[in-house]
């Protein structure tokens, strides 16, 4: 069963209080909606009364003088109902939309603050569900949940009061149909709910089986298992059909029953009302008005139980959203952070750093090194050696489990998080472009970076002319995930972005994706510009990129096992670096 099928408690005081926190700011709208609700019911319920007046005062009396006036009143009631109902729907929707708007934004904002490890544990799909379907389900709470239940109740109470006021004896006779209606409705709705839940579960099973067979069709056919698959699918298909037929059965009975109750009520009113007319305590107008009111009576009774299902789903969704909002933010700035004045010097120290995405399985073991200001360091290693993890730790995407990381002699946990990240220029492996313009992607919308600086940065990495040639130049929009730019172009943009901020430390995770030789040449050219005049760390997948580094660190299985300049490392024929080098030049 999918998330949305889970049952929530229909009423949960803690949750309601919490929800109220979101509704409170819009309480004027809520009140307006409630007032409108009463008004709509009023305009609706006055109509049968006007019919009674026409019949009793005009038709029965054989006069026509007041007919036009009463018809006008009836028309006015209709128009009022039309306008008020529209206003009520609109205002209620506005309330719901506002609340949902706030909740969705808050959830998204909270997600931005959660640590990377949270995203490792939660698949993208699940988080998307929170932001979309769950929020939408909660929205239902407004459009067809609480307020509509209130609306139904108001209408019911109104009808009961009017009927009692018009004629209590006839009213009592009419009310006798309420208990069986309630019982039958409840009985059938409960069963229908169960049946539909079952139908949905069976359908999900059926569709999973279909999906699995379609995507695994080659295996099915290569193992010649078509018959077994057809039989298994046939079984599920049959079960689904049976569940569907059960649903049809309840549905057919219930809808016929609703009609039956209406007709029986009519018969009861005719009988009792007839009696009253013959004895003189009921007028024809009252009789007809009763028939009209009774017709309006059953819809709300039947709908009440349907609203129950909506409430359940909304409550379950709300619970999941609040769970997300309650997830603690574990990586945050120090309470009294050490400020970074101007540019960093650029000294980096890893001191006995041990870290694992799963604390029980470290990917870095006791790694220590110091990078001097202005030094150019390359980091190499086989896939899975922990190279890229080093960067993630340096900008605190994850916090380490043992040891210290110092920047300019200060533990990185002492800095303000955003300031630390801004001070270290990072070019990550997968070149991500943000939605917005090209210029925005270089300046990152930071007002301290001027247009001139953006252009200078672009020129430095030789991408200025390319940008100028775009139809929109620097204002060209970046499509979803930067799909309108090639990998090489994206990498150059990332370089420009890194140097536009002129960081004291630049960390570069070299992309593994292959680019054409021309772009490759440009990237190499750009790299020289990018690296000069700052501390730089190069995570290299191609060893050619780090040959010129002052020093190369070699990681293997999460340990730092060799370091030194290119030539020195090559001199150790059994060394990891030498092996990697042979592998790459082969």
């Amino acid at each position, binding site marked *: 069963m999918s998330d949305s099928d889970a049952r929530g408690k229909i009423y949960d005081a803690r949750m309601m209080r919490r929800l109220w926190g979101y509704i409170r700011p819009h309480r004027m709208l809520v009140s307006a909606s409630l007032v409108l609700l009463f008004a709509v019911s009023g305009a609706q319920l006055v109509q049968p009364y006007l019919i009674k007046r*026409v019949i009793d005062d005009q038709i029965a009396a054989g006069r026509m003088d007041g007919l036009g006036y009463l018809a006008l009143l009836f028309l006015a009631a209709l128009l009022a109902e039309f306008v008020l109902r529209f206003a009520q729907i609109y205002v209620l929707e506005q309330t719901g*939309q506002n609340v949902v708007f706030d909740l969705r934004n808050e959830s998204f904002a909270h997600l931005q603050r959660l640590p990377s490890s949270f995203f490792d544990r939660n698949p993208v799909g699940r988080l998307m569900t929170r932001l979309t379907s769950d929020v939408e389900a909660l929205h239902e709470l407004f459009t067809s949940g609480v307020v509509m239940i209130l609306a139904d109740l108001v209408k019911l109470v109104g009808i009961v009061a009017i009927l009692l006021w018009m004629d209590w004896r006839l009213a009592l006779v009419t009310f006798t149909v309420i208990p069986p209606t309630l019982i039958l409705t409840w009985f059938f709705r409960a069963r229908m709910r169960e049946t539909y839940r079952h139908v949905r579960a069976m359908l999900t099973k059926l569709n999973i089986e279909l999906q699995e067979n*379609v*995507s695994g069709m080659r295996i099915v*056919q*290569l193992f*010649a298992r078509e018959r077994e698959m057809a039989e298994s699918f046939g079984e599920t298909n049959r079960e689904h059909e049976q569940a569907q037929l059960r649903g*049809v059965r309840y549905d057919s009975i219930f809808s016929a029953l609703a009609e039956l109750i209406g007709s029986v009520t009519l018969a009861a009113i005719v009988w009792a009302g007839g009696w009253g007319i*013959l004895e003189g305590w009921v007028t024809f107008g009252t009789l007809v008005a009763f028939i009209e009111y009774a017709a309006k009576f059953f819809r709300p009774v039947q709908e009440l139980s349907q609203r129950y299902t909506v409430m359940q789903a909304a409550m379950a969704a709300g619970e999941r959203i609040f769970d997300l909002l309650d997830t603690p933010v574990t990586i945050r700035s120090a309470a009294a952070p050490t400020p970074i004045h101007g540019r960093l010097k650029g000294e980096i120290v890893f001191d006995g750093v041990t870290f694992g995405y799963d604390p029980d399985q470290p990917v870095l073991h006791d790694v220590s090194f110091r990078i001097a200001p202005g030094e150019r360091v390359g980091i190499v290693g086989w896939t899975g050696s922990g190279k890229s993890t080093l960067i993630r730790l340096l900008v605190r995407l994850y916090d380490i489990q043992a040891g210290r990381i110092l920047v300019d002699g200060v533990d990185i946990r002492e800095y303000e998080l955003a300031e630390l990240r801004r001070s270290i220029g990072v070019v990550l492996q997968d070149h991500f472009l943000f939605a917005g313009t090209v210029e925005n992607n270089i300046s990152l919308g930071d007002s301290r970076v001027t247009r001139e600086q953006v252009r200078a940065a672009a020129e430095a990495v030789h991408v200025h002319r390319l940008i100028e040639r775009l139809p929109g130049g620097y204002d060209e929009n970046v499509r979803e995930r930067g799909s309108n730019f090639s990998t090489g172009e994206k990498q150059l943009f990332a370089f420009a972005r890194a140097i536009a901020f002129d960081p004291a430390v630049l960390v570069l995770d070299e992309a593994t994706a292959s680019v054409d030789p021309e772009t490759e040449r440009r990237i190499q050219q750009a790299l020289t510009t990018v690296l000069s005049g700052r501390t730089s760390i190069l995570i290299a997948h191609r060893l050619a990129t780090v040959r010129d580094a002052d020093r190369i660190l070699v990681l293997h299985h999460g340990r730092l096992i060799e370091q030194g300049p290119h030539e020195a490392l090559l001199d150790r024929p059994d060394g990891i670096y030498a092996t990697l080098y042979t592998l790459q030049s082969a």
Partner: protein
Amino acid sequence: MRAAVSSRFWEFARPYAPSYALGLLMLLATNGLSLWIPWLLRDAIERLEEGSPLAEIARLALAMAGIAILQALIRTASRLQILGNSRKIAHDVRRRFFAHLLRLDAPFYDVNRTGDVMSRGVNDIRLVQAFFGPAVLNLLNTSIVYVAAVALLLSIDPLLTVVSLTIYPPLMLAVNRASRRVYARSLAVQEQLATISNRAQENISGIQQVKTYVQEEREIAAFRELCAEFRRRNMSMAALRGVMLSLIGIVTGVGTLVVLYVGGRFVISGRIGFGDFVAFNAYLGLLVWPTIAFGWIINTFQRGLGAMERLDEVLVAVPRIDSGFDADGKQETVAEPLAGHAIEIRDLTFTYPGAAAREPALKNLNLKIPGGSRLAVVGPVGSGKSTLASLLARVYDVPSGSITIGGKDLRDLPVRAWRRSLGYVPQEPFMFSRSLRRNVTFGDPDAEAAAIDRAVERAQLLKDLDQFPDGIETVVGERGFTLSGGQRQRATLARAIVVQPSLLILDDALSSLDADTERSVMRGLDELMRKRTAIFITHRPSTLTEMERIVVLDDGRIVEEGSHEELLALGGTYARIFERQKLRQDLEDR
């Protein structure tokens, strides 16, 4: 196409034609009864005006109740017939669709992606069900009610009928127009929701970049803007929906207003009776919902038609390779095992079907694989290794005579019998959402426990079983326990071993295994493969050294062929690949 589609509808509806006919009869009956009730109301009011005794009125009230009960019974039965048919037809369509999918071959699945096939199997069948059920039911019901109610209205007073019915068409048009535009705006809302969800997905998948570049606030602001647009679109839809619902809300009232004003005058002037007046109002009320439903009915029929067209596209697709499977047909006989039979490939050139201009994936291939031998296929990405494997399994068809098994043309062997003598381990390990046991015995559900144990042991899966919550009974796959890549590969290997194949094909199927496990797997296979033929697509040095023969493919051609030692001595492509892989393995082992 249209003619084909309508015959498709008929094909599925035919078995249920009598039931539909019965349903129609019952609809006529139940509506006849329900239209009788207002008439009785009219009688009752006339009696009351005449001052008849209460017993008379009670008799009429009782008749109303009795008719109502009868009406409800027949109504239930009619719905059961017609709606039930639609569920049964959906079941039949689904069965046909699935059975046909099982017959369709690789060229079909190359062109039609899983998502597309799923959308037909899920959404389109649902639409077809709505066509055969609610749409048919409401069409019949609406037509009956319409004809009968209008006739009754006319019989009461033609002029009043004309006057009150003229109010309806413009109202209905307004409702229909509003609902069409609501639909358009709800599409706009859905679109924006999709935009929001894409944006969120982009953000979440790139969350590390967002954090590294300190872009949280900008992302939040951008997201907020999308949400604001979403709210705006929702409100614009709510405005229209509000108009539509409010209109529907007053439709009945408008009819009553006309009856009150005009009908009231008629009663006072003596043109119609008071009972007529009440009955007229009741009949008019019966017309409201059918009229509103009419737009929906047409819409549902149209969408059902489109859906059946899309289903038909799949149902008319013809597989190039007839696997001999027929859901309704007889079980085929399993052919004798083909152990020891030599495979011969003669001048095989193969181009993937579909794109005509494409280059052949295999060119003039000649190869003899003696029965019971072991062959490795080596070569760079895209050199045609997997193609060769899939052709041997007859996933695609080859020219006659280009592949022979024991001297017989592969095309003349019964497809399923041949496949049953194969053990195929694909590159991408595919597991079904069922227990590990059922995954392993997939090819032979009747395998004995000892055979299963042996296969699990040979595939080096035995020690992993302890880690799974229910051992070999653990449900795995999409909706079950998640296995690692290596575990999945070993499970698919066990699946291939269980069938005791005479030809085992491993398509780079051990890539996720570490070197030690891989060596153990090879040792496990050793004994098993003594009398069987095996083809390994692999670059693993430890596997390559165990092979009797190795062919090197490049760009669809065999460029080198021989034993491991011969090829190493040759110092060509193979030697280069092998040295690289050896270094790689050494590095990993360190």
